[in-house]
């Protein structure tokens, strides 16, 4: 049975301060004009009434991290005999993210299927994922770019979260989702919230009711494959794409990365850093051959991966959580919803003309 607690708006900061004694705590606050998940700071205003510019992706999947630290050492007897000591550097400590949205937290479940599969375990991801807890805030405002309801989610979806917070007029109802989440709800600042559960459920229903226009994307995997070879289709939908990485880097479910080495003297590191499938370099081979030479090929792979390949591999789950950041932050205003719908509606006959 989930633990249900209530916290008054005014107690949020003190509660986070309490949590910060044991965990690294992140909460949305402004950095310049960007609303980011930043280390909690009592002095900083926490902004909860609007979606953050960036999802809290970095807390589990840093923009760049060290996979391997390596050190060269020489045999003093024979300087040309160089030994290499390569070791992993695993992250330590625990993190609490406060104010993530259902789509943000759900994004990590897309990672989980790949990073923590039965075939492979990414221990760096695992270490952070295990130790990062999400206190997710249900959405009261549905933004123009939101479409979580298209991808089998909703504004109160607890998937991937540890605690779900439902905003009420005087505070938040905190409902534990995981065991670890439950442990977070032990503060004296919190009061039993069971009595307000009904009220909260009603709020959730209201929000759910305020979204309409749900689209059925079940045809997307097949339809996207069907237009795979129709380059004219992809050239048209990608025409305004600038091949930048804003969409992928702001996406809570984009998980691609690059591995590069850097050395400095006798030391070096192997880095894993975010990579962007919209960039030509992503698939460029050393020979100069590129299987995805144009932005049309690359956008096809991005949309195809999220709405066709991933669902095909992972039991129909679309690898998009509908947060809409790719739409909002695209410098060219590309709307991924439009592309998917266009592919679904695409009639092969139209190619003939």
């Amino acid at each position, binding site marked *: 049975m989930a633990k249900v607690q209530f916290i008054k708006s005014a107690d949020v900061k003190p509660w986070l301060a309490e949590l910060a004694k044991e965990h690294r705590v992140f909460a949305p606050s402004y950095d310049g004009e960007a609303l980011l998940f930043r280390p909690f700071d009592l002095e900083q205003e926490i902004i909860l009434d609007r979606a953050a510019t960036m999802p809290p992706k970095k807390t589990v999947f840093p923009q*760049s991290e060290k996979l391997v630290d390596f050190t060269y050492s020489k045999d003093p007897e024979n300087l040309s005999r160089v030994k290499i000591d390569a070791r992993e550097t695993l992250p330590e400590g625990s993190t609490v993210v406060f104010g993530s949205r259902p789509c943000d937290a759900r994004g990590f479940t897309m990672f989980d299927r790949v990073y923590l599969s039965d075939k492979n375990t990414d221990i760096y991801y695992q270490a952070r994922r295990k130790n990062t807890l999400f206190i997710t805030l249900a959405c009261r405002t549905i933004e123009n*770019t939101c479409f979580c309801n298209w991808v089998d989610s909703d504004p109160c979806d607890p998937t991937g979260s540890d605690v779900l917070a439902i905003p009420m007029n005087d505070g938040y109802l905190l409902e534990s989702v995981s065991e670890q989440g439950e442990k977070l709800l032990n503060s004296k600042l919190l009061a039993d919230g069971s009595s307000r559960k009904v009220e909260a459920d009603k709020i959730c229903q209201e929000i759910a009711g305020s979204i309409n226009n749900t689209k059925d994307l079940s045809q997307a995997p097949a339809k996207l494959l069907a237009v795979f070879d129709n380059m004219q289709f992809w050239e048209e939908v990608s025409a305004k794409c*600038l091949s930048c*990485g804003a969409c992928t880097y702001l996406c809570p479910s984009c998980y691609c990365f690059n591995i590069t080495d850097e050395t400095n003297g006798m030391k070096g590191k192997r880095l894993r850093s975010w990579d*962007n499938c919209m960039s030509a370099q992503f698939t460029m081979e050393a020979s100069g051959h590129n299987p995805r030479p144009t932005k049309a090929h690359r956008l096809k792979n991005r949309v195809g991966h999220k709405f066709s390949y991933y669902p095909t591999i992972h039991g129909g789950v679309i690898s998009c959580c509908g947060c809409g950041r790719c739409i909002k932050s695209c410098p060219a205003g590309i709307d991924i919803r439009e592309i998917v719908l266009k592919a679904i509606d695409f009639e092969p006959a139209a190619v003939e003309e």
Partner: protein
Amino acid sequence: MKYQQELKDSIRKALPGLDVVIAWSAGYDPLHATPHFIRREEDIDRLEIGPFSVHNLATYLPGLRGKKVGIVVKGCDSRSVIELLQENLINREEVTIFGFPCTGVVDQTKIRKALGHTGKVDFCQIASQTVVIGLGGEEHKLRLSKVLADKCFSCQYPNALISDHFVGEKISPSVQTEGDDDLEAFEKMPMDERFAFWQKEMDRCIRCYACRNACPMCVCRDHCLAESRDPHWLSQEDSVRDKWMFQLIHAYHLAGRCTECGECQRACPMDIPLLLLKKKMNKEIKELFQYEAGVDPEATPPLLSFKMEEENINEREW
């Protein structure tokens, strides 16, 4: 926009001879436009020009070399076209330019700042001096001058400097009111604060390179130094040093070529004030060489040329 119909007619007439015409259409909500690629007659109807026509469409031109391309340009965009022509990165005969008198475009960041957030815009009405925005059921009235892009206040070229078809009446440039106030203010800050400022701003860079890819003069594109190993200027580390260095590379490669269209800053999802660097560079270039990019298709960018005697460079006294 007054001349929209006239523009559509003009494009309709030219379209049969062109592969594509790049313009704008309505975006995902009433506050946004998006680049619009007109290939067929029916695409023309969706064309919209106005204060949301922020994108500098010249960015697309180098990628469309070899095709017959029509492009609708604001005055500032036309300077990028000129610069591309000057550098032989596009062929004049392949490009058909549609100009119109631009009365300014909005700065989304300013609107967002004024309203708190703009996630749920229901409608937007623009009159000559005001913008009325419906946001989550409430109506907000903003002075247009509060939300226009900075560059529009000091705009010297509201009409396309180069065009094959110009619709409407040319208008005269607005009087310089604000100009580079931000640069002036910034340059009054003590050195250490400036240094700290950039560290803080660059820290949130996510290296998406939207700044670069939106820049019409960043023509290296797939061969940018940012990701290259040979030469190996930057690591892929999430470090201020690398991220800042990239912006310096960008600014320096644009020295004498940047038309200050502001796309770098507009495109930045993290709202990093990148234009400041370019403004400074342009200011110095102008002072040193009396040169402004994107005005004369026959000129040579000052860093690609020299004079035996430089009027404004004092021989070093030591």
